[in-house]
């Protein structure tokens, strides 16, 4: 496995509570990793630590061999913008922007001219089954459609890693399956890695590997055979 992102000996404490207690994790290219665990187990903290949102109190995070947990806030922010993509449970799309501009926004933030950014953003709509919805606003989309727009936005910058935090948490079973299939397949096609937090075993089963986290430690590591 060609490692893209790695966390070694990650420790994170919130006051007297230990959220992560020496966690080791590696993610490779086209690899998809689901992080599962009960509430308060530290799964979201692990995702945030790997994504450079939270600084670990111990251990290190490496992106393609480069240590990122010591970077300054501005560089970390730029790193998240350029090399990571994010899909959250809901509410990540700007309600006043049409879908295509929501997708184009990270490209524009990187300095790409607006016309080019929107053009590039539109390319994602057909593969994600969003054809014809380019000018719709998030409020005019169904939950599944909005999540697919969020996936398009996460992938538009051609990231190394896509982080997804309960991406199907607000969707029904059918839509959830449809969205997770798209997320895993399109991420893989793009050559990006996927790190996903979920409490749903069916959703996790779409990933190559599943990490079970309990009390800030990895309690189980399951490797699925990719068909």
């Amino acid at each position, binding site marked *: 496995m060609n490692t893209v992102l790695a966390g070694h000996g990650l420790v994170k404490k919130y006051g007297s509570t230990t959220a992560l207690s020496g966690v080791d994790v590696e993610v490779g290219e086209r690899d998809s990793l689901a992080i599962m665990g009960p509430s308060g187990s530290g799964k979201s*903290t692990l995702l945030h630590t790997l994504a450079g*949102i939270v600084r670990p109190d111990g251990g290190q995070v490496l992106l393609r061999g480069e240590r990122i947990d010591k970077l300054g806030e501005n560089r970390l*922010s730029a790193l998240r913008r350029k090399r990571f993509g994010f899909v959250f449970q809901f509410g990540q799309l*700007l*309600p*006043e922007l049409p879908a295509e501009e929501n997708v184009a926004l990270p490209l524009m933030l990187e300095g790409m001219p607006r016309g080019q950014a929107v053009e590039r953003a539109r390319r994602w709509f057909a593969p994600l089954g969003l054809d014809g919805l380019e000018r719709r606003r998030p409020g*005019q989309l169904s939950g599944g459609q909005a999540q697919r727009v969020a996936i398009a936005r996460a992938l538009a910058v051609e990231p190394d890693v896509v982080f997804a*935090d309960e991406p199907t948490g607000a969707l029904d079973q059918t839509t959830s399956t449809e969205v997770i299939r798209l997320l895993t397949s399109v991420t893989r096609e793009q050559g990006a890695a996927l790190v996903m*937090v979920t409490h749903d075993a069916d959703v996790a089963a779409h990933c190559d590997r599943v990490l079970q986290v309990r009390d800030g430690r990895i309690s189980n590591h399951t490797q699925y055979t990719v068909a």
Partner: protein
Amino acid sequence: MRSPVLPLTWHLARSSGRRGLQSQSLAAGAAAVGAFVLLVMIAACLGSGTRAEHTAWRTPDADRHGTAVQALATTYVRHDPLTVVSLAQLPGRAATPAPPGLSTFPKKGEVYVSPALARLLHELPASQLADRFPTVRSYGTIGAAGLASPDELVAVVGRAAGDPAMSEAAAEGASWFDDGQAARAVVSGFAGGKSSMFTDSDQTLALLGVVLLAMPVVVLASAAGRLGAARREQRLAALRLAGATPRQIIAMSAVESACVGGAGALTGALAYVALLPALAEVPYGVGGWYTGQLWVGLPWLAAVVAAVTALITVSAVSMLRQVATSPLGVAQEANPRRTRMIRLVLFVGALAYIWLSTGSGGQLGHRQLLTLLILFYGAFWLFGPWVVDRLGRIVGRFARRPATLLAARRLSDDPRGAWRTVSGLVLAGFAAGFFSVSMLGSAGSQYDDQVAVITSSAATARDTVGEARALLDRAGVTATVTVAREDDWDSLLGGSPGVVARVSGGPEQTDTAVTALTSTGTGHPPYTQDYASAIDSTVTDRIAQVSTATLALSFVVATASAGLTAAANVLDRRRVYGLLRLAGTPLRVLNRARVRETVLPLVVLAGGTTAMGVYGSYQLNKVAGATINTAGAVELVVCVLVGALAMFAAIGASRPLLRRVTADPAQTAD
């Protein structure tokens, strides 16, 4: 059983934490600003009326069987009007009561002056001012009861009934310039309903300011009510789950917002009371105020506090009702609130109606004018959101930067919200732009160097020329003195017989010439440019003052509105902002977008109407052969710059809030 609403509201308010306290403080601050601005405007309105009443004694009702002769004259010193009331007891008649501000009726040779005039008499050489009055050992003082303002220049002179200054010829004057500045009557007291022309229009124009500021204050109050909306929505959901009825929840919100709004409005009212002495120093019309004139009284004070509190409460409850009736619609903003073309049609229709109403040539009363103004205002309120919507779409089409695109889309998404923030400035800007640079009341400057004396006949005029030359020469004034041509209707004397002195030098020389020539002619004070332009310039000057003050107060209200709206938006949108920031969106992009949301409509609409006002005034000045009022223009620029900077600062003030609410990564589970 006791209602749980009050104790529960109190408990929730106390436990709402730092963020809840911030919201409540901001809402209370907005209520304070709203109440303060309203009270100041009402005070100016009522105070102007009181001031005008204090001048009515100078033109009392005539009484054929009166006991005294009263003559009103106006002269100018350093371009300021000086009202001279000459009084003469008629021999053999009953004693006349003392006029307001004096303890006794003045005897012949006595001179009473207002405190401001006393100071000026002390400062200026006698040849420029004091010699206009009979020589006295000491001046008496006119009390506040006889004055409109502590800065007003007024003199009461006791004379003999046969004195030229008391003659009908002196009062009749030369032309329509005398209207309101000179009068004579036989009187038996000082009751009268006609106020001085220098205070007559003050109240109506102050009312204009109240009308212009009413809506911005309503907007501010509704923004304050909206501030805690997001927090209350969450509470609504939680309490509904806990079994509270919608009525209880609405009652709790109403109680909370009424308490916050009431506390804020009361603070604003107390600030108004505490600042009364400072407010009294702000000049309007004839000058500053007596503090008592600006005291609105307890009923008004209570009414304003109640009105602002009610506005905030209604705004908060209506926000909650929207959530209660259609929570999904509000939460997801499924449909952008587009504006329709009908707004443009109605706006054009209203303008056409106003044009037809005012263009017929008939004289409009104050009430009709006010009605048309309100109609104009209403038309703008319809039209404004439509323009903001179009502006958002146009900017959105051509935006190249993310921040501009975000701002433009926000404008199109909620044009009414953006309009509300700047609406007060749009209309106040137009009025201030027009009147602050206007010189229309100055009637040109064709008499700038002239001092004219009216005589009883052309023959007398020829005799007076020599006398005038000698007096001016003795006073050290360089002037060319000629007999006024009787066919020259454009002269300062309007075709009446008299002499005209063309004086070299500045205002000091003019004042000296006026003083030297006061004793000549019919007894009417000499005419000057200030006298000739007084009727028009008084109204124009007042409108300029009111519109600039309204613009300044509109900026105060708009600053508070913009700051509150920005803070409310951060709190309402903290999830999306937070997630965008987690995904690497720089804080400065979000900030720029927030600032541009206000700057775009502010610059285009408020800046546009202000520029239109200035341009329109400039063109009219040009037609009238005048330049622009430079001092007014500087005042306008300073007001606009300071106001705009204050607005940016108010929006920028919520930047730490944005940083704080987006810095918390624990927005997702564990």
